[in-house]
């Protein structure tokens, strides 16, 4: 009764063709990156050892390890998080739980989009003008971390706002009906239900903060320091800047060393991101509403 017509055949052929072309394009987008990553692992892998991770650079950075840079990145990230997480969570609570639909809210949303979109080097200029010079922190961990904190603030705000908004309104209404204030509701009902989602955002921010280079170049990260930082007003080395330095600034660099630094940095960042994604998936599977 129903015979396959020429048109049917043509349509089916076209569909297969389109599917193949688009699939190939997706593959081509992913393939170079997979190749590049395997190259990094192939060339950088042999460099990495316990000694590489936990000793200082020697011989004008052409030998030795990356410990001061690794430690510096951890310090920068911790101080940046101390500033940006409370602020970002507060902003997200305001936007999700309090903000009326008015021009202030629209301006806040626009500001968040722009904070995320301003070039990293402009954030660096801001860090120099505001924290290094105006607030007189000098080039220090504090100045660099605050610059990073402001730059990555949108990451925390957006992730937190999303997980707060995923908590059903009925939960809040039930709580309000018991006579609870807004804050009691947020504190006892909304936040506990959103905390894992907030955590995914915080992990994402760690990854973003650890990888940034331009904002810390002039605000607190140094090319090379003989001593480890003693406090937040000292300068520090950082892994991302260290990669830039060993790749471009040091003559007579052994070929494989920068690959090792790049591999450590990218492993750190991808590990953090995978953790955040895994947590999000686990959460989605567990959700009861």
């Amino acid at each position: 009764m129903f015979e396959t017509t020429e048109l049917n055949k043509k349509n089916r052929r076209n569909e297969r063709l389109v599917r193949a072309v688009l699939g190939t394009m997706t593959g081509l987008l992913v393939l170079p990156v997979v190749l590049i990553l395997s190259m990094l692992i192939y060339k950088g892998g042999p460099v990495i050892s316990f000694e590489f991770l936990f000793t200082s650079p020697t011989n004008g950075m052409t030998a030795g390890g990356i410990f001061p840079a690794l430690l510096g990145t951890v310090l920068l990230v911790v101080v940046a998080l101390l500033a940006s997480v409370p602020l970002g969570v507060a902003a997200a609570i305001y936007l999700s739980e309090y903000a009326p639909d008015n021009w202030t809210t629209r301006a806040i949303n626009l500001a968040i989009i722009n904070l995320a979109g301003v070039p990293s080097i402009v954030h660096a200029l801001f860090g120099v003008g505001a924290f290094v010079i105006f607030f007189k922190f000098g080039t220090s961990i504090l100045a660099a971390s605050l610059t990073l904190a402001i730059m990555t603030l949108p990451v925390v705000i957006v992730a937190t706002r999303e997980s707060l908004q995923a908590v059903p309104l009925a939960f809040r209404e039930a709580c309000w009906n018991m006579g609870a204030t807004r804050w009691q509701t947020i504190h006892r009902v909304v936040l506990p239900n959103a905390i894992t989602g907030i955590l995914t955002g915080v992990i994402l921010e760690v990854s973003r903060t650890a990888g940034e280079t331009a904002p810390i170049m002039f605000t607190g990260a140094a090319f090379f320091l003989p001593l480890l930082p003693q406090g937040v007003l000292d300068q520090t080395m950082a892994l991302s800047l260290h990669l830039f330095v060993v790749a471009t600034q040091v003559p007579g660099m052994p070929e494989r060393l920068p690959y090792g630094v790049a591999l450590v940095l990218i492993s750190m960042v991808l590990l953090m991101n995978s953790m955040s994604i895994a947590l999000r998936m686990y959460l989605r599977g567990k959700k009861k509403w």
Partner: protein
Amino acid sequence: MPKENHRGATAGSQDFDRLNADWFIDKSVQILVFIGGISAIIFIIGIFVFISKEGLGFIAGDFDAREFFLSPNWRPTSEGNPTYGILALIAGTASVTGLAMLVAIPFSLGAAIYIAEFATGKKREFLKVVVELLAAIPSVVWGFIGLAIMNPIIIKVFNVPIGLTVLNAGIILGLMAAPIMTSIAEDALKAVPDKYREAAEAMGATRWQIIWKVVLPAAKNGLLGAVLLGVGRGFGETMAVLMATGHSINIPTSVFDSVRALTATIAAELGETAVGSPHYQALFTIGIFLFVITFIINLTADLIVRGVRKG
């Protein structure tokens, strides 16, 4: 119960009988989170104010808008007669971003259509995760890839003396921007209601006809927003273009020319200038220019995407 306090009668009368500790905590938290909310506005204004403050001396003094925008001569360290023309730097940024978009737009739109309309189940989840991870690779690592891996490949394949060129940086930047554009474009496609697809399918349209005639036109604005955000990202990228362009001041005539970008100039020179010198202030003036351009790009992208949601 008689009420002695009459303040509540005008504003928030539901709080009238409970002006206790809980009420005050509630109000203080509300003020605290509001401060958190407007901090984003304060910061964006702060960025503009502080970079303007540092750049103002130059704009008020040596600044000549014609020379600044139209002269290709960026010679800030020249003894006696320094010139501050950013035309060559703008050309550098534009050429690299342009090539990056030529690479990124077709591939990221193609990938977004594939992920949103063709891939299903596990495959779709997997591709989404891969795209998200790609977007997370730090720019300094991309710069290193351009320097250490792409550079020798370009020299060998095209038989040119130097591989740190518009081509190198354009490809690197394209690969960098593509994952972000893919995920925004995919969101835009997913936002097209399924009933549009079902209606078209009921009329006997093939999958590709549905995508081409129904889904893409409906998602047009969201896709345009994705492209604009990609342009903004490319325009503002610093470390990758610093390391992969070759960093020589040049108005490029082919993709095998080395160029220098606006962002890279600031990154390379700020460390060597004295605070408050004309050179230092000129670099901040470039910063103001970058800030204004990216602000306009982001604002436009936001307005376009928002336009879809209302319609």
